[in-house]
């Protein structure tokens, strides 16, 4: 456990080697952006209502300002003259066992890095950026939450975060391919594997082949309808990057490089990301910075691709095939942190009869509680479910029977919220809604 590791560290004020490493990392990250956000908070305390953790628990230590404060206090203590000379006056804190323990609980256990507080902050402090920096410091100290670390390790060591053996993955896809062939009654329909020279290399969230293969079928059916030239890699297909959540830039870089290499190996033109909020953010926006170069290929979300299919009439949809009222949950990393805001609405409105907006929505939407790697950290599960009450209440108010969201992590959390708060809704990906509304052309000979 992370807490046990804290105890074996130095019991006095002198810094241990690990603590020194963490402070060195903080120093190395001090660019204009980080300096700005570490120096900006005025402790106004008005940010509490923007945070689902604070709203659900009323714990004073969970307000975003407090999360910024603990990291800022360490920065002040070791990297500013004022903090070194008069630490008490400026609230500068020693980086000791107590501070580390508090830091772990706050940055791993009480923040999903959703960024809602930053949008509403009276100054504009980028709270998730600071929280992720703190997580990176804890990576240096080997104090990442065990569940989160094992997810990162699985991705690095096995190629996917669930450790699915390649044979099992291939078997699942072959079965799904046969299933597709039967469903569309076309023996040419298939899920192409490791095909070279394609227009699209599609990625998956490993939870799809492991637990929810129907979401793969849905997307395969859409690709079939659009006559897309696509493939899946059987070696590198994982859209997730939990190293983004843990703060491990080396791991995140390794996972990004693998995708780049696979794109090059398969000579694919566009990397299409499965419905995964953090995967989209990590690959589309953070990846080039981890590998320190722009991608030589295009990266888009499958939701954006489906939007293009609809606009260009490559697929036809019949909304009357989805009669139940549908609401949309905006995944934080895809919407606030990724800028994909309107296209999912366009797609849903074309695929269902009755679409109801959740309030608030878009960049103001509340996190479901499953972000920030929370689903991998079992020690904070109770807190995660409690913080999700804000989302559950939002859903209930819509009166919708189906909640659609382009994020598998959100789906997992929403399914738990559905059960815990007895919402009586069905949770679906956007691909599944679209696949249900697809009108397939009859094959001409």
């Amino acid at each position: 456990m992370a807490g046990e590791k804290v105890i074996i560290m130095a019991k006095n004020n002198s810094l241990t080697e690990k603590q020194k490493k963490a402070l060195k990392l903080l120093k190395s990250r001090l660019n204009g952006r980080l300096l700005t956000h570490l120096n900006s908070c005025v402790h106004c305390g008005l940010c509490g209502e923007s945070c689902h953790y604070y709203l659900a628990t009323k714990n004073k230590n969970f307000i975003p300002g407090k999360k910024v404060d603990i990291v800022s206090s360490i920065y002040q203590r070791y990297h500013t003259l004022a903090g070194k000379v008069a630490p008490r006056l400026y609230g500068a804190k020693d980086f000791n066992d107590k501070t580390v323990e508090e830091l772990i609980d706050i940055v791993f256990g009480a923040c999903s890095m959703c960024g809602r507080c930053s949008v509403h902050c009276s100054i504009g402090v980028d709270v998730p950026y600071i929280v992720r920096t703190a997580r990176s410091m804890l990576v240096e100290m080997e104090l990442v939450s065990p569940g989160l670390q094992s997810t990162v390790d699985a991705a690095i060591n096995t190629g996917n975060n669930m450790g699915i053996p390649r044979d099992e993955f291939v078997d699942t896809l072959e079965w799904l391919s046969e299933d597709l062939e039967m469903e569309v009654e076309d023996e040419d329909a298939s899920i192409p594997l490791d095909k070279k020279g394609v227009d699209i290399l599609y990625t998956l969230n490993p939870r799809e082949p492991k637990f929810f293969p129907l979401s793969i079928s849905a997307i395969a059916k859409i690709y079939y309808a659009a006559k897309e030239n696509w493939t899946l890699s059987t070696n590198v297909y994982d859209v997730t990057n939990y190293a983004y959540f843990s703060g491990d830039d080396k791991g995140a870089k390794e996972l990004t490089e693998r995708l780049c290499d696979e794109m090059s190996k398969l000579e694919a033109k566009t990397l299409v990301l499965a419905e995964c909020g953090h995967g989209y953010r990590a690959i589309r926006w953070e990846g080039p910075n981890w590998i320190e170069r722009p991608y030589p290929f295009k990266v888009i979300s499958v939701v954006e691709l489906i939007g293009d299919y609809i606009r260009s009439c490559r697929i036809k949809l019949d909304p009357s095939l989805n009669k139940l009222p549908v609401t949309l949950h905006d995944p934080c990393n895809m919407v606030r942190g990724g800028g994909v805001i309107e296209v999912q609405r366009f797609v849903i409105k074309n695929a269902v009869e009755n679409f109801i907006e959740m309030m608030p929505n878009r960049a103001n939407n509340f996190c479901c509680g499953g972000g920030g790697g929370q689903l991998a950290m079992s020690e904070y599960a109770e807190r995660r479910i409690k913080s999700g009450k804000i989302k559950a209440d939002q859903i209930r108010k819509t009166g919708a029977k189906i909640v659609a969201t382009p994020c598998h992590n959100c789906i997992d959390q929403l399914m738990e919220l559905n059960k815990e708060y007895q919402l009586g809704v069905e949770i679906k990906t956007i691909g599944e809604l679209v696949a249900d509304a697809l009108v397939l052309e009859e094959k001409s000979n």
Partner: protein
Amino acid sequence: MTIFHWILLAGFVICLLSCLYHFFMALPAGKDIDYATPDAKTRQAVVYSFTKAMSPKKKETAFMHLPTYTAGIFYHLGTFLSLFLVIFIFFNVSFPTWLAYSIIVFLAFTSICGLSILIKRMTSSLLKNLSNPDDYFSNILVTGFQIITAIYLLLNTGLEYYFIITTILFLYLPIGKLRHTIYFFTARLHLGIFYGRRGTWPVKK
């Protein structure tokens, strides 16, 4: 020029140089390079960050806390006005009576706003948990600066006390919480660039 004029001038120069140092260190450069291909031009988002994104209608921190937000706005206006008046007081420029009294009334009101924020910080358990001595001292210093400005305008005496308080303010500004005078602008800039590149800002609807 009295010795107090020179002290104030020195304090101002130190403040200005320190603020410029903070400002240039906080600007995007070097390690801030973003290799991800932007989705949109950032200029509009930066403008949005400083304008519409700051609107009370857009911010929960404003519309859910209107009394505090309003007090904060007036408190800041009082601070800016007091800082602006330093130039006039330094060069011994006198105001018409009606203007001087208008300023005094306004500064009295903004000082009350500052004090109300201080009282809230001292009484709210949430804020007490978040605050450090610098938060209290900064408020007292700035509120004191507004009060002494008003008193000087009213009585036209005690210039040396006014200069001392103002010099302390100048010297403290780049060190403590008051440095948000600079970082507010770089925070809005960085946030505008961040959301602008990704196409999140400006909000289109």
